[in-house]
């Protein structure tokens, strides 16, 4: 049964989505941090510029530094986002010379800024500030101490710039994904075209068209196309076999029917009751053979078409063989033969099987051996365990079968190259079918010095219950 499990497109789309969202998360994280950094850098340089401008205006009056805060420095600090601004000028002891807000500068910051320019993030109340501290050399006539300049502003501009940059990054990414998605769809359309072509070709195919495919396919579809070709070849073969079988069967049925016709015609032309009796006996004989032939054909057809065996059960081959051979040995047809069993192994020989089918198999094997060997021949059946397999064999000391015919032995209507028997030629074909149902391997071998040996290798089952 065909189960539809999603579509290739959906699978590709989901795969793409998963990959894109994974990749997207990483990209977004990267974009977030890099935009933050970019905004920080942009605005930190404003702080630097403002600090420098203030430093320029430091002048010494006697022993006191005096700062006339330049208006431009405050404008630079405020930026176009109109940040709140902070500035403080400290002397070398950390004393404030000038400041506009009472934002506390940490003592550690003061020491650190004496060595290198520093940056600090600070929260006062619910307002975030970014501070920059830096020491500048300065000298008056009396005193030559450095001054430290601290500037700072609120961070709304940074946040605005960062979110603006981040937004742009997101828009770029989303646009790219959408575009990639559309291109992917188009690519899928193109890529799946050979599949559509193949589908159309298969759909247009006539029911009885078993010729190999004639299609251009990409590498990925080659295996499928080849499998289809193999399937077609097997169907062709099986149909041919069926046709041959039907022809053969008709032919086989025709011969005895023709015999019946001629016998009955001869009898009808005669007035002699003895003739009639003989003819009637002949007709009876012929009808019996025809009926047997029809029965075997039916059973072969059934075996071949029922398909897989559905109810296999564990059973002991030893018992089955024993019973069947005993039954056949008592029959009239076996009177002139020496039908016997080899010594059977002590342990049970359990296989998975259908009892009726295995009985039929044994029957056919024995019947076959009886028919194709001269009276007085010795027919022996036996069982043997070989590793994981159980071997069932039957051998006779009859004339045997020529090697070139042996391979065709299990085909219907094959009589081992013999025309001198009453056999239908279906016995071994039935055996073959049953063997296949039991996953058993069937082999025909030569027995020395003369005769035929047929072996069946069953897979051994667990213990019989």
């Amino acid at each position, binding site marked *: 049964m065909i189960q539809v499990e999603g579509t290739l497109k959906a699978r590709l789309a989901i795969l793409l989505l998963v990959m894109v969202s994974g990749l997207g998360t990483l990209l977004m994280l990267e974009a977030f941090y890099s935009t933050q950094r970019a905004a920080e850098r942009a605005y930190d340089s404003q702080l630097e510029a403002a600090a420098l401008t203030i430093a320029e205006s430091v002048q010494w009056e006697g022993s006191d530094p*005096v*700062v*006339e*805060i*330049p*208006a*431009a*420095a*405050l*404008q630079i*600090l*405020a930026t176009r986002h*109109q940040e*709140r*601004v902070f500035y403080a000028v400290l002397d070398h002891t950390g004393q404030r*010379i*000038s400041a*506009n*807000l009472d934002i506390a500068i940490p003592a550690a910051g003061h020491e650190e800024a004496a060595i290198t320019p520093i940056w600090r993030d600070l929260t006062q*109340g619910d*307002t975030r500030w970014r501070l920059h501290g830096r020491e500048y050399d300065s000298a008056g006539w009396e005193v030559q101490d450095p001054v430290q300049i601290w500037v700072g502003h609120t961070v709304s501009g940074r946040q605005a710039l960062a979110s603006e940059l981040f937004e742009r990054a997101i828009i770029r990414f989303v646009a790219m994904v959408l575009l990639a998605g559309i291109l992917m769809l188009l690519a899928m359309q193109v890529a799946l075209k050979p599949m559509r072509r193949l589908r159309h070709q298969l759909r247009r195919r006539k029911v009885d068209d078993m010729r190999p495919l004639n299609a251009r396919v990409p590498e990925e579809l080659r295996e499928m196309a080849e499998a289809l070709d193999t399937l077609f070849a097997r169907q062709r073969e099986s149909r041919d076999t069926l046709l041959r079988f039907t022809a053969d069967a008709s032919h086989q049925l025709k011969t005895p029917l023709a015999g019946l016709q001629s016998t009955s015609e001869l009898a009808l032309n005669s007035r002699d009751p003895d003739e009639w009796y003989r003819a009637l006996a002949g007709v009876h004989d012929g009808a019996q053979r025809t009926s047997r032939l029809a029965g075997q054909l039916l059973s072969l057809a059934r075996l071949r078409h029922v398909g897989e065996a559905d109810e296999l059960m564990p059973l002991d081959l030893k018992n089955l063989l024993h019973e069947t051979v005993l039954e056949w040995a008592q029959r009239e047809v076996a009177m002139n033969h020496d039908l016997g069993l080899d010594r059977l192994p002590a342990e049970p020989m359990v296989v998975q099987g259908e009892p009726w089918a295995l009985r039929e198999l044994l029957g056919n094997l024995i019947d076959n051996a009886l028919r194709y060997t001269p009276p007085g021949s010795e027919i022996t059946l036996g069982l043997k365990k070989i590793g994981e397999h159980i071997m069932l064999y039957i051998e006779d000391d009859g004339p045997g079968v020529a090697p070139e015919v042996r391979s065709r032995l299990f085909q219907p209507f094959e009589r081992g190259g013999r025309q001198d028997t009453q056999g239908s030629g279906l016995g071994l074909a039935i055996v073959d079918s049953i063997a296949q149902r039991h996953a058993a391997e069937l082999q025909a071998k030569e027995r020395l010095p003369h005769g035929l040996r047929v072996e069946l290798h069953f897979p051994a089952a667990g213990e019989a219950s």
Partner: protein
Amino acid sequence: MRRVLLTTVLSFFCLSSSQSISATPLVVEAALDRQVVAPLLEAFEQAHPEIELTYRDRTTLEVDALTEAADPAPDVVISSAMPWQMNRVNQGHAQRLDSVQASEWPEWAKWRDEVFGFTFEPIVMAYRLDLARRMMPPQTHADLHTLLRTQGETLQGKVTTYSPSLSGIGYTLFQQDARYTARFWDLVTAMGDADTHLESDTRSMLEGLTDGRYWLGYNLLGSYAMVWAQQHPEVIVQVPQDYALVVMRTGFIHRDAPHPSAAEAFMNFLLSRDGQRVLAGQTPLFSVRPDVIGPYTAQRLRDQVGDRLYPITLNASLLAFVDPQRRDAFMTRWQREFNR
């Protein structure tokens, strides 16, 4: 002098008559003459009868001190001393106003959407007719300097201007003057030589002019002077022809405003078309909004005076004026030049 003008008779009437038991109070501390701004306040009270307005008129430095003390905080703070207002906003004493009026307000007349300049008042010179009879009245700063140098004896004791130490607006104006040209200090020296009287507000200067104590006033608030000149024909107002500074009254809602929604309503009215129309039509404060028509609008003033208007824009550079060291340095120089 401390003038505390309580609610108008009108609002008293409202309070006693109708439902106004639930009226929201609103306290406005302003350095803006009540008489000048009265039409605007009346219009506001009519538009918002549910708000009980208390308007207190003070000097710029008083307003600034009250803002800092915040005990209790006023709802709205109005002052013409732009650097002080900016300083308080920078310190975080203001709260943001989010409204259509605020967002539509011209960029140059607001800062951080917290403080708004809502008037456009030119800084002028004023003189008595007596002066015009004796000499050519000054039209530019250079004229004024020349006049003081050439007619120093005649004008001795008859010139007046703002005191930079007593008045925030006066200090701001001189700072701005000094920013434009170093020759300003020559003018200060000349004013010192002429024994110029330093007053703390425009009104005192105008009263002096009318009394005849003064003949010439420098750096007066044009809004007051123009109204005064209409009622006192002996006083002539002259917008300087070289450059005229323009100051803005700025207002913001205090961070700790006890009645923030009433304060927002007041600010929005101040910035609205209706409020600005009252300013343009019934007060000499000059409307900033370009879409308002009336005798007193920034646009009209520009048309009359041309490009010589130099508004002191609201930005962070104003903060430099209130830096103590800078202020000290300026005042030291002022004293030196004035007393030379």
